[in-house]
């Protein structure tokens, strides 16, 4: 449930999205804005040098780490524990939430503050903590907005409230939190800040995700702009950080490369306002660090991709660069994907983590334009992985008519004589449909095409004949 958004089937969600003019406007202007920012922080930034070299370095680091995942996880776990931290390997989302519930119960926790974390959305942590009597406070501005708006779901992995504009946010604040100010972003942020300030100080547990863990020192790194993650990890006596099992780097040297790739690709910033690195420092008299620090390392389907053609999907650093250039996401937005992981990477990851039954249609929601693969800072061949998913999906779930059509295609495309017959016969066959050199209403599957576009009338089917004549010196008339 936690990863899933909405109950409608895929096309129902798409229909809803396409009717939402405001959301679509927000998506396309956000994409255009982010594209410009990314270009100026990457290929156009002289300090960067060759951006392609950075991408290759990122790819190499990620590949090396994933190929040696057991070693680095072991190292991370050992170093984290050595400094007094507690490491828990969760095989499933339920394992993770159960463990965290236990910690909350043991600490008799009442208030939990959270920094932005998609992996906690994935496992449904807020609901799990509420079950054991905790009040959970999202402190990232975008997540705060969604939470007070009756637990709306994220539509973008980096900017979860991308589908809302400032007027809508003002109204939400007015309706749900007695806000009296205007839609001016500064005022809205100041209001959220004033609401959250007390909460930060009262929290019993601080929860964060993890952008990268550093194996050599047992540290976790958080990349943020608002400073809320620092508040979340400074005040409470207990800190719990949750990470996907793939989210680590060997050393601080690689961390440097990855942070550059992440902040430049995600938001077009050379570096984000805060890069917070936390290493357990558990002592009895510790005053500026949590007395208890838990690291939950989550599998929840990830290991299924190891050793398969999808392994490189685990290289993902959640920058959303692929989402920001996807022409499909541009029109349908995040919620239509029905998963908290949306866009091209969502269409690749969601079936891996949540199965084909629930997410098998997502890989088809791409024109395979490859803008995603081109944008990815760690060079995940996203559009190719979408095709790999399709190959698996059609074997199990394709309609018989489609399978038959493709079989026919295979036969037709390997028999020149059949093909020639088809090309020759087509003009006659299609003649009843043709008007003014095009077809505006076609039968069968063609109907889906001609519902919105004209279909070209077939030519005279004589190119081969023309070519032979032409070669014999028969001129250029066909």
């Amino acid at each position, binding site marked *: 449930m936690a990863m899933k958004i909405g109950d409608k089937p895929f*096309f129902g969600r798409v229909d809803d999205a396409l009717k939402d003019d405001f959301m679509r406007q927000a998506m396309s202007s956000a994409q255009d804005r982010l594209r410009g920012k990314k270009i100026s922080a990457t290929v156009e930034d002289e300090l960067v040098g060759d951006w392609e070299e950075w991408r290759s370095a990122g790819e190499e680091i990620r590949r090396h780490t994933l190929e040696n995942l057991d070693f680095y996880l072991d190292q991370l776990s050992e170093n984290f524990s050595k400094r007094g931290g507690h490491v828990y390997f969760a095989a499933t989302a339920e394992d993770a939430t159960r463990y965290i519930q236990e910690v909350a119960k043991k600490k008799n926790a009442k208030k939990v503050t959270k920094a932005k974390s998609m992996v906690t959305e994935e496992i449904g942590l807020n609901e799990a903590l509420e079950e054991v009597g905790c009040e959970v406070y999202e402190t990232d501005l975008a997540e705060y907005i969604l939470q007070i708006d009756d637990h709306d779901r994220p539509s973008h992995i980096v900017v979860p409230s991308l589908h809302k504009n400032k007027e809508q946010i003002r109204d939400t604040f007015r309706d749900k939190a007695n806000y009296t100010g205007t839609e001016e972003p500064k005022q809205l942020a100041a209001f959220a800040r004033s609401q959250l300030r007390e909460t930060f100080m009262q929290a019993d547990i601080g929860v964060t995700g993890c952008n990268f863990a550093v194996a050599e020192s047992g540290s976790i790194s958080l990349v943020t702009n608002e400073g809320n993650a620092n508040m979340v990890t400074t005040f409470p006596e207990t800190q719990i950080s949750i990470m996907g099992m793939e989210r680590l780097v060997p050393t601080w040297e690689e961390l440097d490369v990855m942070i550059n790739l992440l902040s430049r690709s995600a938001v077009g910033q050379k570096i984000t306002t805060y890069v917070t690195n936390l290493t357990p420092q558990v002592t009895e008299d510790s005053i500026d660090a949590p007395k208890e620090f838990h690291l939950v390392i989550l599998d929840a389907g990830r290991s299924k991709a190891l050793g398969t053609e999808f392994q490189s999907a685990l290289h993902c650093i959640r920058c959303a660069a692929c989402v920001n250039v996807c022409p499909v996401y541009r029109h349908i937005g995040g919620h239509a994907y029905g998963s908290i992981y949306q866009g091209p990477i969502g269409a690749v990851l969601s079936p891996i983590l949540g199965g084909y039954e629930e997410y098998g249609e997502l890989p*088809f929601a791409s024109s395979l*334009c*490859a803008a995603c693969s081109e944008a990815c800072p760690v060079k995940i061949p996203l559009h190719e992985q979408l095709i790999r998913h399709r190959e698996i999906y059609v074997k199990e779930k394709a309609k018989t008519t489609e*399978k038959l059509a493709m079989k026919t295609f295979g036969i037709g*495309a*390997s028999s020149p004589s059949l093909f020639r017959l088809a090309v020759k016969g087509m003009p006659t066959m299609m003649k009843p449909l043709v008007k003014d050199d095009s077809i505006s209403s076609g039968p069968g599957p063609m109907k889906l095409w001609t519902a919105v576009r004209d279909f070209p009338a077939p030519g005279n089917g004589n190119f081969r004949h023309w070519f032979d004549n032409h070669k014999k010196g028969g001129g250029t008339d066909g």
Partner: protein
Amino acid sequence: MKVSLFVTCLSEMFYQNVAKDVVEVLERLGCDIDFPKGQICCGQPAYNSGYREDAQKAAKQMISSFENSEFIVTPSGSCAAMFKEYPELFKEDKEWHERAITVADKTYEFTQFIVNVLKVEDLGAAYSARATYHTSCHMMRLLKETEAPFKLLANVKGLELLPLANNYDCCGFGGTFAVKMAPISEQMVDEKVRHVEESTATLLIAADNGCMMNIKGRIDRKGKAIEVKHIAQILNSRVEGSV
């Protein structure tokens, strides 16, 4: 130079004039063109839809037809990119994998071949129009050919080439995507048509018949006064008396 024409199934079925223009342009540049008779379709519709085995059938037919060619030239960046994908398609079949590499290595998209192999940028073409150019995704991102069409169009006399906003966004064709995801594809092609209109061009030039079929289909349906032509048609337009 011996060149085998890979005409593409779309050109053969719907755009014979484009195919003829390709032949004439290449011949004028001194190419000796042959047309391997066994050619049908590159297999992309099946491959992109997840039907690997059916795509392999199409691919084998094409590999057998083209493996002895010196150069393979096609007026479609997308179909050229599919030829380049053949080695991956046969990665588990040693014999066909090697044959696939032979074919992939000598495949060129039409404009790419003229600019990068023949080293010609001025074809002496002339065409008077206010035009804009649609950069097709597969040519740009899979073949990584971003310059050849522009170099050639820059030398077409009388042609004013206007910038196209969001030219990097897909037109929404995507083969079977256009019908499988029809409501999304519709929005994508609509936005493309809107940007073409906003460019104030009265002619849209493209180098891929798939994109053309999609964008032109929508332009015509909406009754817009914008012509759509393949780049070969423009490059084969001549000023009288030129070579």
